[in-house]
Protein backbone atom coordinates (compact mmCIF):
# COMPACT_ATOMS: atom_id res chain seq x y z
CA UNK A 1 0.00 0.00 0.00
CA UNK A 2 1.24 3.51 -0.66
CA UNK A 3 1.07 6.19 1.97
CA UNK A 4 -0.31 9.01 -0.12
CA UNK A 5 -3.86 10.01 0.71
CA UNK A 6 -6.32 9.41 -2.08
CA UNK A 7 -9.09 11.97 -2.62
CA UNK A 8 -11.52 9.08 -2.73
CA UNK A 9 -10.74 8.30 0.89
CA UNK A 10 -12.88 11.25 1.86
CA UNK A 11 -15.81 9.46 0.30
CA UNK A 12 -15.40 6.22 2.27
CA UNK A 13 -18.53 5.21 4.06
CA UNK A 14 -18.65 4.71 7.79
CA UNK A 15 -22.09 3.15 7.61
CA UNK A 16 -23.67 5.18 10.35
CA UNK A 17 -27.09 4.45 8.93
CA UNK A 18 -26.48 0.77 8.26
CA UNK A 19 -29.54 -1.12 9.36
CA UNK A 20 -28.79 -4.31 11.39
CA UNK A 21 -30.95 -6.40 9.02
CA UNK A 22 -29.06 -5.00 6.05
CA UNK A 23 -25.76 -5.66 7.86
CA UNK A 24 -26.79 -9.29 8.49
CA UNK A 25 -27.75 -9.71 4.84
CA UNK A 26 -24.47 -8.17 3.68
CA UNK A 27 -22.43 -10.33 6.05
CA UNK A 28 -24.16 -13.54 4.93
CA UNK A 29 -23.96 -12.70 1.25
CA UNK A 30 -20.29 -11.68 1.38
CA UNK A 31 -19.27 -14.70 3.49
CA UNK A 32 -21.08 -17.09 1.14
CA UNK A 33 -19.63 -15.50 -1.99
CA UNK A 34 -16.09 -15.45 -0.54
CA UNK A 35 -16.30 -19.10 0.54
CA UNK A 36 -17.55 -19.99 -2.94
CA UNK A 37 -14.67 -18.16 -4.59
CA UNK A 38 -12.00 -19.65 -2.29
CA UNK A 39 -13.38 -23.18 -2.47
CA UNK A 40 -11.19 -25.88 -4.00
CA UNK A 41 -14.21 -28.15 -4.24
CA UNK A 42 -17.19 -26.13 -5.48
CA UNK A 43 -20.28 -28.25 -4.71
CA UNK A 44 -21.71 -28.12 -8.24
CA UNK A 45 -18.42 -29.07 -9.93
CA UNK A 46 -17.88 -31.81 -7.33
CA UNK A 47 -21.36 -33.22 -7.86
CA UNK A 48 -20.84 -33.28 -11.64
CA UNK A 49 -17.51 -35.06 -11.05
CA UNK A 50 -19.41 -37.65 -9.00
CA UNK A 51 -21.76 -38.31 -11.91
CA UNK A 52 -18.85 -38.55 -14.38
CA UNK A 53 -17.05 -41.02 -12.09
CA UNK A 54 -20.20 -43.13 -11.81
CA UNK A 55 -20.58 -43.15 -15.61
CA UNK A 56 -16.92 -44.14 -16.07
CA UNK A 57 -17.13 -47.02 -13.60
CA UNK A 58 -20.46 -48.13 -15.10
CA UNK A 59 -18.77 -48.23 -18.53
CA UNK A 60 -15.93 -50.33 -17.09
CA UNK A 61 -18.46 -52.67 -15.46
CA UNK A 62 -20.47 -53.04 -18.67
CA UNK A 63 -17.29 -53.82 -20.63
CA UNK A 64 -16.48 -56.78 -18.35
CA UNK A 65 -20.04 -57.96 -17.79
CA UNK A 66 -20.42 -61.63 -18.81
CA UNK A 67 -16.69 -62.25 -19.28
CA UNK A 68 -15.71 -65.82 -18.57
CA UNK A 69 -12.84 -66.25 -17.98
CA UNK A 70 -12.27 -62.72 -16.78
CA UNK A 71 -9.79 -60.74 -18.90
CA UNK A 72 -10.42 -57.13 -17.84
CA UNK A 73 -12.00 -54.00 -19.32
CA UNK A 74 -11.52 -53.44 -23.05
CA UNK A 75 -8.94 -50.92 -24.24
CA UNK A 76 -11.52 -48.53 -25.71
CA UNK A 77 -13.23 -48.11 -22.35
CA UNK A 78 -9.88 -47.76 -20.54
CA UNK A 79 -8.88 -45.02 -23.02
CA UNK A 80 -12.20 -43.28 -22.37
CA UNK A 81 -11.58 -43.43 -18.62
CA UNK A 82 -8.10 -41.93 -19.08
CA UNK A 83 -9.60 -39.09 -21.15
CA UNK A 84 -12.18 -38.54 -18.41
CA UNK A 85 -9.42 -38.47 -15.78
CA UNK A 86 -7.43 -35.98 -17.90
CA UNK A 87 -10.45 -33.69 -18.32
CA UNK A 88 -11.27 -33.99 -14.61
CA UNK A 89 -7.67 -33.13 -13.71
CA UNK A 90 -7.72 -30.10 -16.02
CA UNK A 91 -10.94 -28.88 -14.40
CA UNK A 92 -9.37 -29.45 -10.97
CA UNK A 93 -6.27 -27.44 -11.90
CA UNK A 94 -8.43 -24.60 -13.25
CA UNK A 95 -10.54 -24.52 -10.07
CA UNK A 96 -7.36 -24.59 -7.95
CA UNK A 97 -5.77 -21.71 -9.87
CA UNK A 98 -8.92 -19.61 -9.64
CA UNK A 99 -9.42 -20.27 -5.92
CA UNK A 100 -5.78 -19.73 -4.96
CA UNK A 101 -5.10 -16.58 -7.03
CA UNK A 102 -3.62 -13.99 -4.67
CA UNK A 103 -3.79 -16.33 -1.68
CA UNK A 104 -0.63 -16.88 0.36
CA UNK A 105 0.48 -18.19 3.74
CA UNK A 106 1.44 -21.31 5.62
CA UNK A 107 -1.89 -23.03 4.97
CA UNK A 108 -1.26 -22.75 1.21
CA UNK A 109 2.09 -24.53 1.59
CA UNK A 110 0.31 -27.21 3.61
CA UNK A 111 -2.22 -27.57 0.79
CA UNK A 112 0.61 -28.12 -1.71
CA UNK A 113 2.10 -30.83 0.54
CA UNK A 114 -1.34 -32.46 0.74
CA UNK A 115 -1.58 -32.39 -3.04
CA UNK A 116 1.75 -34.22 -3.33
CA UNK A 117 0.63 -36.80 -0.73
CA UNK A 118 -2.56 -37.32 -2.72
CA UNK A 119 -0.66 -37.82 -6.00
CA UNK A 120 1.63 -40.36 -4.32
CA UNK A 121 -1.37 -42.25 -2.94
CA UNK A 122 -3.03 -42.28 -6.39
CA UNK A 123 0.10 -44.05 -7.64
CA UNK A 124 -0.11 -46.63 -4.84
CA UNK A 125 -2.74 -48.90 -6.35
CA UNK A 126 -1.07 -49.29 -9.79
CA UNK A 127 2.17 -50.24 -8.00
CA UNK A 128 0.36 -53.01 -6.11
CA UNK A 129 -1.30 -54.03 -9.39
CA UNK A 130 2.13 -54.21 -11.05
CA UNK A 131 3.54 -56.33 -8.23
CA UNK A 132 0.62 -58.73 -8.44
CA UNK A 133 1.15 -59.04 -12.20
CA UNK A 134 4.87 -59.65 -11.59
CA UNK A 135 4.13 -62.49 -9.18
CA UNK A 136 1.72 -64.08 -11.65
CA UNK A 137 -1.59 -63.29 -9.94
CA UNK A 138 -4.77 -63.97 -11.92
CA UNK A 139 -6.39 -61.46 -14.29
CA UNK A 140 -9.32 -61.30 -11.87
CA UNK A 141 -6.99 -59.72 -9.31
CA UNK A 142 -4.64 -57.74 -11.57
CA UNK A 143 -7.25 -56.29 -13.96
CA UNK A 144 -10.36 -56.58 -11.81
CA UNK A 145 -10.55 -56.46 -8.05
CA UNK A 146 -7.36 -54.49 -7.35
CA UNK A 147 -7.70 -51.66 -9.93
CA UNK A 148 -11.41 -51.32 -9.04
CA UNK A 149 -11.17 -51.35 -5.25
CA UNK A 150 -7.52 -50.48 -4.53
CA UNK A 151 -7.62 -46.76 -5.37
CA UNK A 152 -10.67 -46.29 -3.16
CA UNK A 153 -8.92 -47.81 -0.16
CA UNK A 154 -5.52 -46.16 -0.67
CA UNK A 155 -6.67 -42.69 -1.75
CA UNK A 156 -9.68 -42.74 0.58
CA UNK A 157 -7.46 -43.47 3.58
CA UNK A 158 -5.12 -40.63 2.63
CA UNK A 159 -8.05 -38.22 2.27
CA UNK A 160 -9.52 -39.37 5.60
CA UNK A 161 -6.20 -38.58 7.33
CA UNK A 162 -5.99 -35.14 5.72
CA UNK A 163 -9.61 -34.39 6.60
CA UNK A 164 -9.17 -35.45 10.24
CA UNK A 165 -6.12 -33.20 10.64
CA UNK A 166 -8.17 -30.21 9.42
CA UNK A 167 -11.40 -31.17 11.22
CA UNK A 168 -13.06 -31.26 7.80
CA UNK A 169 -15.86 -33.64 8.80
CA UNK A 170 -17.76 -33.70 5.48
CA UNK A 171 -14.54 -34.81 3.75
CA UNK A 172 -13.78 -37.27 6.56
CA UNK A 173 -17.24 -38.87 6.24
CA UNK A 174 -17.00 -39.03 2.46
CA UNK A 175 -13.52 -40.58 2.63
CA UNK A 176 -14.69 -43.23 5.11
CA UNK A 177 -17.64 -44.06 2.83
CA UNK A 178 -15.24 -44.48 -0.09
CA UNK A 179 -12.84 -46.68 1.92
CA UNK A 180 -15.75 -48.82 3.12
CA UNK A 181 -17.04 -49.13 -0.44
CA UNK A 182 -13.56 -50.18 -1.58
CA UNK A 183 -13.45 -52.80 1.18
CA UNK A 184 -16.80 -54.20 0.09
CA UNK A 185 -15.77 -54.14 -3.58
CA UNK A 186 -12.74 -56.32 -2.78
CA UNK A 187 -15.10 -59.20 -1.98
CA UNK A 188 -17.57 -58.74 -4.84
CA UNK A 189 -15.53 -60.47 -7.54
CA UNK A 190 -13.73 -58.86 -10.50
CA UNK A 191 -16.89 -57.91 -12.42
CA UNK A 192 -19.11 -56.46 -9.70
CA UNK A 193 -16.14 -54.80 -8.00
CA UNK A 194 -16.32 -52.09 -10.72
CA UNK A 195 -19.99 -51.41 -10.07
CA UNK A 196 -19.65 -51.36 -6.27
CA UNK A 197 -16.56 -49.12 -6.49
CA UNK A 198 -18.37 -46.71 -8.84
CA UNK A 199 -21.40 -46.49 -6.56
CA UNK A 200 -19.19 -45.97 -3.48
CA UNK A 201 -17.27 -43.16 -5.21
CA UNK A 202 -20.49 -41.56 -6.41
CA UNK A 203 -22.01 -41.67 -2.92
CA UNK A 204 -18.81 -40.32 -1.34
CA UNK A 205 -18.27 -37.50 -3.84
CA UNK A 206 -21.89 -36.36 -4.15
CA UNK A 207 -22.40 -36.74 -0.38
CA UNK A 208 -19.33 -34.56 0.17
CA UNK A 209 -20.64 -31.94 -2.27
CA UNK A 210 -24.00 -31.81 -0.48
CA UNK A 211 -22.47 -31.75 3.02
CA UNK A 212 -19.90 -29.07 2.20
CA UNK A 213 -22.57 -26.90 0.52
CA UNK A 214 -24.72 -27.17 3.63
CA UNK A 215 -21.75 -26.47 5.91
CA UNK A 216 -20.74 -23.42 3.87
CA UNK A 217 -24.26 -22.03 4.02
CA UNK A 218 -24.45 -22.65 7.78
CA UNK A 219 -21.07 -20.98 8.37
CA UNK A 220 -22.17 -17.85 6.48
CA UNK A 221 -25.51 -17.59 8.29
CA UNK A 222 -25.92 -14.83 10.89
Amino acid sequence: MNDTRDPEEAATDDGGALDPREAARLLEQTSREARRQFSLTPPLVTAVMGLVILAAYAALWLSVLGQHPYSGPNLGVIALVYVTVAVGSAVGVKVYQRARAGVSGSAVALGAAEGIALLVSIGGSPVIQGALHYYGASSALVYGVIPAAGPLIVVGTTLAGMAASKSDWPQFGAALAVVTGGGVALFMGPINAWLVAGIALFVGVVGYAAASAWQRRAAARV
Partner: protein
Amino acid sequence: MTAEALDPLIHAPARLRIMATLAALPEGVALSFTRLQDMLELTPGNLISHLRKLEDAGYLTTTKTGNGTASRTSIGLTGRGRAALEAYRDALRGLLGGL
Protein backbone atom coordinates in the same frame (compact mmCIF):
# COMPACT_ATOMS: atom_id res chain seq x y z
CA MET B 1 -29.67 -4.61 22.88
CA THR B 2 -29.24 -1.61 20.56
CA ALA B 3 -27.25 -0.95 17.39
CA GLU B 4 -24.59 0.74 19.55
CA ALA B 5 -23.54 -2.76 20.65
CA LEU B 6 -22.21 -3.33 17.13
CA ASP B 7 -18.49 -2.63 16.71
CA PRO B 8 -18.45 0.66 14.75
CA LEU B 9 -15.21 -0.32 13.04
CA ILE B 10 -16.91 -3.32 11.44
CA HIS B 11 -20.40 -1.84 11.16
CA ALA B 12 -19.76 -0.12 7.83
CA PRO B 13 -20.62 -1.82 4.51
CA ALA B 14 -17.13 -1.79 2.99
CA ARG B 15 -15.31 -2.83 6.18
CA LEU B 16 -17.91 -5.49 6.93
CA ARG B 17 -17.33 -6.96 3.48
CA ILE B 18 -13.53 -6.79 3.91
CA MET B 19 -13.73 -8.62 7.25
CA ALA B 20 -16.21 -11.23 5.97
CA THR B 21 -14.08 -11.91 2.89
CA LEU B 22 -10.84 -12.34 4.85
CA ALA B 23 -12.60 -14.47 7.49
CA ALA B 24 -13.58 -16.94 4.75
CA LEU B 25 -9.91 -17.91 4.50
CA PRO B 26 -8.31 -20.26 7.03
CA GLU B 27 -6.14 -18.77 9.78
CA GLY B 28 -2.60 -18.01 8.67
CA VAL B 29 -3.66 -17.29 5.09
CA ALA B 30 -3.43 -13.85 3.49
CA LEU B 31 -4.97 -12.35 0.37
CA SER B 32 -3.34 -10.02 -2.13
CA PHE B 33 -4.57 -6.44 -2.30
CA THR B 34 -5.41 -6.93 -5.99
CA ARG B 35 -7.58 -10.00 -5.43
CA LEU B 36 -9.36 -8.38 -2.49
CA GLN B 37 -10.03 -5.30 -4.58
CA ASP B 38 -11.35 -7.44 -7.45
CA MET B 39 -13.64 -9.37 -5.14
CA LEU B 40 -15.07 -6.32 -3.40
CA GLU B 41 -15.09 -4.05 -6.45
CA LEU B 42 -13.78 -1.08 -4.45
CA THR B 43 -11.46 1.61 -5.75
CA PRO B 44 -7.84 1.35 -4.52
CA GLY B 45 -8.13 4.58 -2.51
CA ASN B 46 -11.35 3.50 -0.84
CA LEU B 47 -9.97 0.06 -0.01
CA ILE B 48 -6.70 1.48 1.37
CA SER B 49 -8.61 3.85 3.62
CA HIS B 50 -10.74 1.06 5.12
CA LEU B 51 -7.78 -1.29 5.46
CA ARG B 52 -5.85 1.38 7.33
CA LYS B 53 -8.68 1.76 9.88
CA LEU B 54 -8.92 -1.97 10.41
CA GLU B 55 -5.16 -2.33 10.64
CA ASP B 56 -4.95 0.48 13.21
CA ALA B 57 -7.46 -1.44 15.32
CA GLY B 58 -5.31 -4.58 15.08
CA TYR B 59 -7.97 -6.48 13.14
CA LEU B 60 -5.72 -7.20 10.19
CA THR B 61 -2.12 -7.10 9.10
CA THR B 62 -0.69 -6.01 5.80
CA THR B 63 2.60 -7.34 4.50
CA LYS B 64 4.46 -5.83 1.60
CA THR B 65 6.92 -7.97 -0.35
CA GLY B 66 9.16 -7.06 -3.30
CA ASN B 67 9.99 -3.66 -4.71
CA GLY B 68 8.73 -1.39 -7.46
CA THR B 69 6.36 -2.92 -9.98
CA ALA B 70 6.96 -6.39 -8.52
CA SER B 71 5.79 -5.32 -5.06
CA ARG B 72 2.81 -7.09 -3.61
CA THR B 73 0.71 -6.33 -0.57
CA SER B 74 -0.98 -9.17 1.30
CA ILE B 75 -3.70 -8.72 3.86
CA GLY B 76 -4.60 -11.20 6.54
CA LEU B 77 -7.07 -11.22 9.41
CA THR B 78 -5.48 -11.36 12.88
CA GLY B 79 -6.81 -13.48 15.74
CA ARG B 80 -8.16 -10.28 17.24
CA GLY B 81 -9.92 -9.43 13.99
CA ARG B 82 -11.46 -12.88 13.73
CA ALA B 83 -12.69 -12.64 17.34
CA ALA B 84 -14.07 -9.14 16.68
CA LEU B 85 -16.04 -10.36 13.66
CA GLU B 86 -17.40 -13.27 15.69
CA ALA B 87 -18.44 -10.87 18.46
CA TYR B 88 -20.04 -8.62 15.83
CA ARG B 89 -21.93 -11.61 14.41
CA ASP B 90 -23.13 -12.57 17.91
CA ALA B 91 -24.22 -8.99 18.63
CA LEU B 92 -26.08 -8.91 15.33
CA ARG B 93 -27.84 -12.18 16.17
CA GLY B 94 -28.83 -10.80 19.57
CA LEU B 95 -30.08 -7.62 18.00
CA LEU B 96 -32.09 -9.33 15.27
CA GLY B 97 -33.51 -11.82 17.75
CA GLY B 98 -34.85 -8.90 19.74
CA LEU B 99 -36.42 -7.16 16.77
